[in-house]
């Protein structure tokens, strides 16, 4: 496969995107697990499908439409969550399905043959373009810089929002910023695993990491390493057997999680 990677641009792009996806998944995945925002992130991902449809309809790059929808929905979700007493779950459920519905409507408005949406729904890492790579790189740099440059403040905010507020941190700012980072992460992941499978890639690596450490920073690093390992092996398997990359990566990492959780659970008790 090494030879093939050196030879084919599409394989290089697949490799880069898998690595970049692992980095944001390790960081943002760890955060959303600790903040119980997993379903919220799933909601933002699915809402972005509306943007994919819009992109196709207006004949602009669908990923830009998705980015716009993801950012928009994440800001709406935070705002509604702060201003009203609507239960988050309810809110997510509605946005989730509405986003998908908007996407389907836009596609149906299109003249002629509908485009193949499956690479956005299920991901296709082997068709990642140079432009996708550039967009992903910009988003990954933003996410990594945002978290590392304010790491102690983020940690305090994530651990105890009220206490951080009393200490004078602008917790409003961190909340909005966090949701924007989740939206950016979703966009990085769309081409790798697809909208439908994003949640698994966000949650499984940090969940595996949590089996081995009780430290926030270590959880992030381990999650990045696990994410990279499984997405690269998934990529390799999908290339080898010519099977869908997103699904292969997700199954690999999901099964590993359950096996390890079972084993470590057993080991701890005995």
């Amino acid at each position, binding site marked *: 496969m090494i030879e093939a990677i050196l030879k084919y641009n599409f394989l290089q792009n697949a490799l880069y995107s898998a690595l970049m996806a692992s980095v944001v998944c390790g960081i943002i995945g760890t955060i959303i697990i600790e903040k119980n925002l997993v379903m919220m992130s799933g909601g933002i991902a699915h809402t972005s499908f509306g943007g994919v449809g819009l992109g196709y309809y207006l004949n602009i790059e669908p990923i830009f439409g998705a980015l716009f929808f993801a950012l928009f929905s994440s800001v709406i979700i935070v705002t509604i969550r702060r201003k009203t007493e609507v239960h988050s779950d309810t809110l997510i459920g509605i946005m989730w399905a509405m986003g998908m519905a908007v996407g389907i409507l836009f596609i149906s408005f299109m003249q002629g043959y509908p485009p193949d949406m499956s690479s956005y729904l299920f991901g296709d890492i082997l068709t990642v373009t140079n432009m996708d790579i550039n967009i992903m790189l910009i988003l990954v740099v933003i996410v990594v810089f945002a978290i590392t440059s*304010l790491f102690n403040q983020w940690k305090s905010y994530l*651990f105890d929002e009220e*206490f951080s*507020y009393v200490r004078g941190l*602008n917790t409003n700012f961190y909340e909005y910023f966090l949701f924007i980072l989740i939206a950016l992460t979703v966009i990085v992941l769309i081409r790798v695993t697809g909208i439908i499978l994003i949640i698994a890639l966000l949650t499984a690596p940090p969940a595996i990491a949590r089996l081995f450490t009780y430290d926030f920073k*270590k959880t992030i690093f381990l999650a990045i390493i696990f994410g990279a390992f499984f997405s690269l092996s998934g990529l390799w398997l999908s290339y080898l057997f010519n099977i869908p990359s997103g699904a292969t990566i997700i199954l690999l990492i999901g099964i590993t999680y359950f096996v390890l959780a079972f084993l470590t659970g057993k080991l701890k008790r005995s």
Partner: protein
Amino acid sequence: MEESVIVIKNLNVFFNEVPILKDIELKVNEKQFLAIIGPNGGGKTTLLKVILGLIEPDSGQVKIKGLDIKEGRKLIGYVPQISDFDKHFPINVKDVILMGRISDKQGFFHSYSQKDINLVEDIMKDLDIFDFKDKQIGRLSGGQLQRVLIGRALVAEPEILLLDEPTASLDAESRSNIYNILRDINDEITIIVVTHDLSAISSYFDSVACLNKNLHYHGDKNISQEDVDQVYGCPIELIAHGVSHRVLGNHSGDEQHD
């Protein structure tokens, strides 16, 4: 008269049009050690959160050392109710206490200074939690976690300390351990404690307020049996173990205090 560090005037808080706090008037003096008692749902946590700026009051005024809450809250150390607290977060004792050093002053790429670390270690030793500084917080006992939260509040070097039920679900020994720690700290700073622990009042506190929507408070340890009956809605025995008769003073003409 000593200087008042917290002054609350005519405070009202409603949740969905239901009054939670009504016409609260409170003055807390420097180095005071005030207990706030009252039934579940009486609004004790709400009152603390108003003082901390976590809940916006519907009317009234709160001053902390003459400052508005926005500035004044930075002078306060806060120890939240343990039950409202995420114990699963992957973080150890030392890192939790270090967080007390975070403030709005730090910029990008902040790291804790040696001075921060020394202070944290000193306070951990004072509170007798230095031995498990590397333990994940979810693995502490209730009394240990409580001391960790007190430590986090103290490293901020506050002038006022607010504690929300710091002795709930602790055994008698841990309870008196916490109160003794607080009494020592009280030499330096003003302390307000929300508690259901009536028996501790006479032996540790210098004043007590009763809260159930309305606040019954005379600036000292005297609360009448009527106050308590009214606040709890049913007669409650204040003659708990070790309570001096001063607390029971059934002074006349006190009903009109608010």
